[in-house]
């Protein structure tokens, strides 16, 4: 494994340096039918789950096959995507915001061979490599964060719960039978790199134990004032602590005030929160980002805590399955999960989804909490 230089000279870092060139221009990558018809599309149809056709003013058509996939992806897998795109799509492919892969062809005749090819490919372990689906009212891919594979603050894994959940929801990925779109998202801590807070169903990793204090190293590893300032509830204060017969500078945490956000740990590695029993999953529901019919909505906490159960998180997936099935059974056509919950009332939502309503679900975090309490006599028995 000899070091091979790219040409970069560490003694003269500015020599031949190229910076601030930004991304490649999109026009380098458009398939011809896209380049030709951009801005002139007339309408689209979803031919079957996972297969779309867009028709342009020119009469041109582009057929898109959408495949699910893990966003954690190897170059081996990407090379296989390239092989498929070369074989069927003239060397073009795209990815969606929700980590789906889209293969496009400009002729209906090319569609069936492409779909057959995609559906025939399986990993050695037996799962599909390129399941076709995820359009319209089918449940599409879960957007998610890194989790245990690469993040330093996670309260749960990401790829594992996502794989487990999509296995349980797979029939919904392949079928257009829900009343409207249903978006599932996962964030492995409340930093929410995945911004899951406006999803129909959000899977959120959460800590439940205050930070441990590594007194021996804390002052050496951290800027103590930054750790103190990072706490949204002012639960951290400076403290002199006896350690190994010496007084050391450290912090003290007012534990009942801790909201377990982990912001202190982000600023100070001497304050880890992670815990096998303390950490787990919060389920939120009823959010959306679209402006269709009703305004965008935040997701609401409907299950305060489910333990981490690797490798397959059965309680989490069971809870999600119950919510999806209740929604499927009882919502009106075009009604998003949150719109359905508001129409039937949240008291009915918990009943229909067979979820327990606990005191944890009543907001007690600052002013906005008041606006979630019920200031009316209108409720349902």
């Amino acid at each position, binding site marked *: *494994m000899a*070091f091979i230089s*790219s040409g*970069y000279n560490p003694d003269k*870092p500015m020599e031949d*340096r190229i910076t*601030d*060139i*930004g*991304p490649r*221009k*999109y026009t*380098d990558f458009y398939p011809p039918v896209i380049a030709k018809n951009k801005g002139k599309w007339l309408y*689209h149809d*979803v031919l079957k789950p996972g297969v779309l056709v*867009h028709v342009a003013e020119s009469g041109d058509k582009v057929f898109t096959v959408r495949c*699910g996939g*893990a*966003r*954690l*992806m*190897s*170059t*081996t*897998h*990407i*090379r296989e995507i390239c092989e498929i*795109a*070369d074989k069927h799509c003239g*060397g*073009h*492919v795209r990815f969606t915001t929700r980590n789906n892969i889209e293969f496009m062809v400009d002729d209906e005749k090319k569609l069936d061979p492409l779909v057959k090819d995609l559906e025939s490919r399986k*990993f*050695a*372990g037996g*799962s*599909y490599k390129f399941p076709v689906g995820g359009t319209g*009212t089918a449940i599409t891919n879960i957007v998610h964060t890194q989790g*245990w594979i*690469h*993040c*330093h603050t996670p309260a749960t894994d990401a790829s*594992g719960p996502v*794989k*487990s959940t*999509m*296995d349980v929801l*797979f029939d919904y*990925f392949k079928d*257009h039978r829900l009343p409207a779109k249903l978006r599932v998202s996962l964030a492995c801590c*409340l930093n929410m*790199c995945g911004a899951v807070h*406006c999803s129909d169903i959000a899977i959120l990793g959460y800590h439940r134990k205050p930070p441990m204090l590594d007194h021996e190293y804390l002052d050496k590893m951290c800027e103590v004032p930054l750790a103190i300032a990072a706490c949204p509830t002012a639960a951290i204060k400076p403290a002199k602590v006896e350690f190994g017969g010496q007084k050391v500078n450290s912090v003290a945490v007012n534990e009942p005030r801790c909201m377990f956000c982990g912001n202190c740990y982000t600023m100070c*590695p001497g304050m880890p929160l992670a815990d096998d029993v303390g950490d787990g999953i919060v389920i939120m529901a009823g959010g959306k980002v679209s*402006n269709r*019919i009703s305004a965008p909505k935040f997701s609401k906490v409907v299950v305060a805590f489910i333990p981490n159960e*690797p*490798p397959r998180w059965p309680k989490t997936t069971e809870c999600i399955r119950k919510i999806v099935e209740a929604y499927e059974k009882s919502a009106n*056509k*075009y009604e998003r999960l949150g719109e359905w919950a508001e129409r039937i009332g949240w008291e009915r939502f918990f009943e229909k989804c067979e979820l327990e309503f606990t005191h944890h679900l009543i907001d007690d975090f600052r002013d906005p909490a008041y606006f979630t309490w019920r200031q009316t006599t209108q409720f349902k028995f």
Partner: protein
Amino acid sequence: MAKSKTPLLDQLESGPWPSFVSDLKQQAEVRAKNEAKTEFQIPQTVVEELMGLLELSYVHKRGHWKHGGIVGVFGYGGGVIGRYCDQPQQFPGVAHFHTLRVNQPSGKFYTTEYLRQLCDLWDFRGSGITNMHGSTGDIIFLGTTTPQLEEIFYEMTHKLNQDLGGSGSNLRTPSDCIGQARCEYACYDTHALCYHLTKEYQDELHRPAFPYKFKFKFDGCPNCCVASIARADMSFIGTWRDDIRIDQEAVQAYIGGELPPNAGDHSGRDWGPFDIQKEVIDLCPTECMWMENNKLMIENKECNRCMHCINVMPRALRIGKDTGLSILVGAKAPILDGAQMSSMLVPFIKAEEPYDEIKEIIENIWDWWMEEGKNRERLGELMKRQGFQKLLEVTGIDPDPRMVSEPRSNPYIFWKEEEVPGGFKRDISEFRKYHQR
């Protein structure tokens, strides 16, 4: 190192959904065989060791990555995230495992030629493990060592004409929906605006000068497929201000059942025959539609462009022709003081090159936020702390009822001295002449 056994991860190979574990295993095997004879610049066993470390997390139910260290490429303060594992003796191959964010092309369209170039570079100088894509939109390269960072950057800029994305207190890599490239709903060219602003603000993207992160996202229409309203400090959402275009024949085709509603999105279940009254007219949030002499009528002035009717009947209804975008500002995830959505600042603006008016708004907002924002305070939090009126003041935008969902319900207006005739300076003795103590 002996091959790690991963009995817990192995249980994620079954089931229909694509298994990341199977993919990691195939990658480990490809690296072990190395038929391409790649002169790997980081350990050949990196993927096995990554799986070993992840298995350990599955046993411990805790992550095993340390806090990021400060690593990067010369002159940039973003684009690279340092990552070190906390069990380097057991898994030396992933002791350093840094992330690179690579600025994705608009719309995430690729040629296979380019994707293979990325793969070649990443197999040679990294783990070969990626995210396609990260949450913000970048191509993510997961796992390389510190000495490779400059080498990767050099090859990327010299051979691939490709730059890194943003991280830290920078402008984060902007991202967009598919837009006009393949969507009839797009009200402006999201790719063009996203690309233009990304190029324009390269300095802000690479060199941290902000109080915290700042995100731009570009949605072509109010359906908001990239969720800009939920997660961008500035959300650019396409809209129009003239009339929805109606094809009455196609309306009849929907009513007659010749065309499936919602472009066929409900095909998996028998919802009964399409009922335009129930499914479109009654669900219109502004009640601005009705049927008259077998024609669909829309009082366009009352329409709030929610997209429902267009989504249901895409062949009959089209967005207007006088298109542009709305700018909403201040969205963020819950940390710290709760989640915020973007709030309406500019109801309508044309999106035309060179986008000077849009840039003026951006720069006015940045000037204010950089001056007044505290460390790690997002724009939305500054707006809450100093008020929406302050935002109007710094951007020079006139107030408009479209900016609020309702007027305030308290009268505690902070009147400014210059707004009240005569100002605040008064003479108490003069007052006492008429009002005894």
